[in-house]
């Protein structure tokens, strides 16, 4: 990494530091010079590292907090990729160290750093192999952050795998009684997804050809760095376009450009009677929905959660599940728009099935943590539905704002669920640390025993219930309202879920917190919430309220990028997929002028 690169790429070091600082500290902690016995030192170092990474991400996301905005920091309202870092990595295959953030990934990055910090603080009760635990924990953070900022598909895949292994060990070594079963189950599911994803990556790579892109598209997708001077740009563009053989690429932005070409090679290539685009979409979708997870590939989640230690559950629910949704949004749809449009019923259907099935399953659980895990399945179903209605109303009218509402709702739901589910798992963990059981039938009367804790816990559970004024409401309402235009039946079923959600959450609250007396063992251990726990719970409750009352804080980041992507795809639908411009008509009275030809 030469000096010139860091001048023309101001985000090089900040972004690299956000991703790799945890790994670096992990490497340091793993050295023999750090004695295993110095557990407090290891814990504090980890917490400090995660805090630094959080501040760094905040520095990028909210420049005003740190004074004037620098070139590496995020410009609100800018729709494209920002803070792009581009260095060659494996030249033979055109693999690059290509990072960047936009309004879709940046909030998720901040969510990750924030939850990692809280999870590090929640790791104090871990007493087994403390050193190894924290090394793996930090590696996990690097993996997660890397996935969110990678713009190179190969790099994305590497981070995706980097994340998988620490998670396997964290569940398999520090988990509960059935930890090995849960860890292997998690590993097998995710590995299956990864293999299919790799297959799709290779299919796309070997079909892609950068020579099809115009010079502007090459620049826009950072195949040719816009940071170069004009002459160098021209040279680089010529080098690509004049190449004799096809120029393959892993660049996600370029792949999206290629996928949206009228003569997209992905759509043109047929494999066993189905377009390559569709194959790739399906393979990637399977890989991502396993992470989300949707019914029927969700059964790793309850086991993983039940066995995982509390901080790992927080990370798992708060961040890992979002990787699936992020992948669908960032990769599946832009690169394979045609397949996305044809298979919208699949995405929406999986979402709605997950919502209802997860809610019913949650209703039946006796294990507190398992119930919360199933609530995640149900809540992530909203994300799928919101993403799916995106490609909804094609054909005769283009309500891009209705699609955008669904996707914005899905993004909001991901972020809100990151807060509320991490909070719910933490709240379960607080109880488990005291009485060492999670049987819903053996609680009761906690409110009178631990009033402050119970107040915070009920607030978090209400956020999960989707109560207005708390973060869970906005995403659910936006997604539900947007789904009507896609399918009346799915919309009705998704609206039905609100009853089930209320039922399982209120019933759990009743059994755990309300009532006259505690019915389980170790009742004398029910001590008041500790300052450390309070320091973790309070920010979660605070943000649950803040985002519920002022959702615009998040939409300011999310909406510009989401709207641009949706508009681009709406435009693609009109231009490429649907050649009936004469019939374009708007329903309703709204919509921006440029999109509604009938006006």
């Amino acid at each position, binding site marked *: 990494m030469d000096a010139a690169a860091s001048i023309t790429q101001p985000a090089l070091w900040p972004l690299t530091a956000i991703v790799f600082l945890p790994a670096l500290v992990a490497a340091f902690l793993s050295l023999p010079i750090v004695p295993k016995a110095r557990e407090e030192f290891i814990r504090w170092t980890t917490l400090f590292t995660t805090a630094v990474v959080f501040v760094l991400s905040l520095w990028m996301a909210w420049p005003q907090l740190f004074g004037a905005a620098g070139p590496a920091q995020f410009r609100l309202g800018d729709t494209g990729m920002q803070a792009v870092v581009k260095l060659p990595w494996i030249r033979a295959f055109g693999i690059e160290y290509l990072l960047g953030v936009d309004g879709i990934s940046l909030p998720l990055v901040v969510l990750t750093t924030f939850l990692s910090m809280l999870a590090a603080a929640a790791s104090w009760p871990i007493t087994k192999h403390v050193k190894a635990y924290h090394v793996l924990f930090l590696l996990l953070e690097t993996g997660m952050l890397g996935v969110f900022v990678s713009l190179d598909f190969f790099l994305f895949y590497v981070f995706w795998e980097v994340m998988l292994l620490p998670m396997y060990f964290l569940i398999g070594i520090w988990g509960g009684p059935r930890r090995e079963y849960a860890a292997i189950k998690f590993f097998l599911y995710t590995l299956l997804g990864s293999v299919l994803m790799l297959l799709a990556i290779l299919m796309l790579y070997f079909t892609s050809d950068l020579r099809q892109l115009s010079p502007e598209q090459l620049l826009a997708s950072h195949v040719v760095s816009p940071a170069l001077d004009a002459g160098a740009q021209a040279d680089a563009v010529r080098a690509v376009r004049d190449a004799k053989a096809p120029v393959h690429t892993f660049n996600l932005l370029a792949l999206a450009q290629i996928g949206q070409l009228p003569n997209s090679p992905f759509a043109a290539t047929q494999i066993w009677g189905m377009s390559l685009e569709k194959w790739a979409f399906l393979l990637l979708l399977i890989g991502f929905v396993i992470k989300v997870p949707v019914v029927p590939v969700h059964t790793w989640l309850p086991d993983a959660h039940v066995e995982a230690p509390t901080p790992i559950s927080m990370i798992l629910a708060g961040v890992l599940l979002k990787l699936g949704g992020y992948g669908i949004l960032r990769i599946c749809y832009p690169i394979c728009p045609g397949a996305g449009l044809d298979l919208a019923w699949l995405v929406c259907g999986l979402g709605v099935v997950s919502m209802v099935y997860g809610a019913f399953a949650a209703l039946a659980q006796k294990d507190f943590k398992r119930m919360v895990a199933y609530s995640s399945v149900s809540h992530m179903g909203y994300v799928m539905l919101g993403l799916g209605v995106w490609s909804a109303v094609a054909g*005769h009218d283009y309500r891009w*704002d*209705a699609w955008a509402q669904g996707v*914005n709702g899905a993004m909001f739901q991901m972020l809100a669920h990151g807060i509320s589910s991490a909070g719910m798992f933490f709240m379960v963990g607080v109880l488990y640390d005291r009485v060492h059981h999670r049987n819903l039938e053996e609680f009761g009367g906690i409110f009178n025993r631990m009033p402050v804790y119970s107040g915070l816990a009920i607030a978090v559970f209400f956020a999960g219930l989707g109560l207005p004024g708390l973060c869970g409401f906005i995403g659910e309402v936006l997604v539900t*309202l947007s789904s009507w235009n896609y399918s009346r039946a799915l919309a009705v079923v998704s609206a039905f879920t609100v009853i089930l959600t209320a039922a399982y959450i209120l019933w759990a609250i009743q059994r755990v917190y309300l009532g006259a*007396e505690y019915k389980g063992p170790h009742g004398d251990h029910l001590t008041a919430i500790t300052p450390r726990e309070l320091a973790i719970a309070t920010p979660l409750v605070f943000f649950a309220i803040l985002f519920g009352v002022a959702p615009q804080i998040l939409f300011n980041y999310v909406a510009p990028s989401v709207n641009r992507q949706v508009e681009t795809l709406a435009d693609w639908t009109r231009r490429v997929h649907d050649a009936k411009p004469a019939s374009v008509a708007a329903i309703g009275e*709204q919509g921006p002028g440029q999109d509604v030809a009938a006006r």
Partner: protein
Amino acid sequence: MDIAAQLPLLLGLAWLVPLASFVAILFFGPRMGPHGRNAAWVATAAIVTSLVLSLLAAGTWLGAHPVQAAHHGGSHGSDHSAEAAGPVAYAGDWYTLYQGGGLRLSIGWYIDALTVAMFVVVTFIATCIHVYASGYMHDELHDVTDHEVHLSGGGHLHRPGRFPRFFQALSLFCFSMLGIVIAGNLAMVFVFWELVGICSWFLIGFYYERTSASTAANKAFIVNRVGDFGMLIGLMALWGALGTLQFADSKAAGPDGAQVVRPGLFGLVRPAEGGHALQVPDGMVKFAAADLVATTPAAEVAAKIDDWRSMGLGRWLLFIAGVGIFCGCVGKSAQFPLFVWLPDAMEGPTPVSALVHSATMVAAGVYLVGRFYPVLTPDVLLVIAYVGAITLFIAATIALVANDIKRVLAYSTVSQLGYMMLALGVGGWAAGLFHLVTHAFFKSLLFLCSGSVIHACHTNDMRKMGGLARVMPWTAGTMLVGCLAIIGAGVPFVIGLSGYYSKDAILAQALSFSRANPAHSILFLAVAGGAFLTAFYMFRLWFMTFAGEPRDHHVADHAHESPGVMVAPLVVLAVLAVAAGWTLPGGFGLPNLLEQARPAGTAEGMTGGFVFGNLTFPAEHESHEGAIHVTATLTAFATALAGVVLAALMYLVRIISPAVVATIFRPVYSFLAGRWYFDELYHALFVLPALGIAELASGTDRGVIDRIIEGLAWTARQLAGIDAWIDRTIVDGLVNATANATWHAGLELKKLQTGHLRQYVMFIVVGTVALFVLASLLFRTSMAG
């Protein structure tokens, strides 16, 4: 400051002050004086502030829009032009929740005469209840022994009091309710709708150590959510096709920066250019005609909309939207079939019952139907009317046999809400809302009186009461006023209590509707029969409680009149229960105030309907005239009188024995006492299947999906085992065999080492030739390949 800026400011503050009180008590409640005693003052001060602000707003309103006598009969033609302009309303937005393209969800206001009136009523009644509760909740100021909670070790629960928490929830409740009233769009209504739900959860479950209380709280919230499920569908139908949930038209910056008027729901469904006549809005027509739109050139779509509309496209969508929104109201206002939560809500402290049952929560549903009225089609109105009729009848019959004083009142609330819904459903917009307001006064009075009785007797069971009028004269007297008000007592055509006016208006409109639609004359019979039942069970309650001799001396000896802080609100409310319906000379009165807010286009009556045949909704002012008015008033008087007389015969002078009647009609009696077995029915129909499906889903995960996954894993392991076997036996075997062969070959070859040089040379030559042949063969094959 002009009124358009002043009203939102005043009412906005009135709305937010209780929220401030909630936050303050949440954080500092326990530190507010000994045991948080001063929390009551904080909450009361907040609601009094809201009341003052609401009164100021009302003053502002009346200053700008003086209330005048309604024009009846022949004069109504002359104010036709004023009618066409629609009611005066101020609308705007405070801030945005979400905006994407033209779609926008916001927090805003819609203020008309109805909003102002509701603000005054809600804050006034809430103030009375706050004052009353500061006395009633006295027990919570010190440690409490809850005799209804039996601990596993024997004995009762002993817990610290939670006085501040009660007022904290009360403040949040008021904030939420006022949020519904001021809401400028349906999304905001939905937000506060849910908040009211959760506040009721807190308050009903106030004694959360009691399983019955927490179960009742859950039941209230979940049953309300069932209604919200329908409401969400209504919201989706509107949002999906129209892209707005705003009530009023709003101005927004268009794409080119110019101000564009974006029509609200009212303007879309009843456009001013059509004289505010109800029509399916363009958006819904296009939505329903999606297939036609797809095949029509874009430029011609606008011209064809009227054709499509006349084909009936989109009318189902409007019907679904109306019924959907009404479903939410069914939940909140405890209508059939979702009324089951309300009687259980009695588990909360009595001031909560008073608040929930009068001016808040249950009022929200009726209020929303009134607010949303312009969008409701004839078919939806008929659904509303029938739901109201069924509700009022079922609830009244259950109230006949209930022995718990609060439950009688609870079922009477359900029944009265049925009245209001029915009134709205038969075209009596003003009648329904008028009754909402008068009912708020006398029902809160009745509940507070019952609380006073319970406070004195420590029991809810009327069979243990009797003769209390002597020890509790104030309570007995004010409760008598409440009973007279609810049955609509008055001197026909001269003067009466508040209920007299509102109930007459409902009866008259129901009669008017029945005359116009003979097929639905059962609606009038329901109203008239309901009036008889109401009179009977209310006076049964009063006679059983206050008249005659004490039935339980243990209870009677301890009974005493409540302290002044509890009696004072009773007197104030009693005065209003008498006078709230009066119209002063000059026309000042509630009905005329409400007329100011009458939705555009509803004064004229309406015909239409496609689901239930053609329906005629006579204009409301027609029911104030002539024969209909006389018939209705006399019917009301006769039925109420009959009810009171029958109650007196059974419970006062005891000529007819209730026990004998119950024995004669044993099956009917037990059916009513079992509350029509709705709880049991719902448990069997919905709760058990839901739990069954839940178990099925959970079982499928463990029993099917996991089995498949584990089966795959097992298969993989078996394959690995086969692989290992192949490795061990075949691959390793081959290697070993090779090794063996080599070994043996070596042994054999040893024999070749004869030491004869000539033999060696021959071997080399033969070997080289063989290698060449082999190599050339291989090469050729590879070239060919």
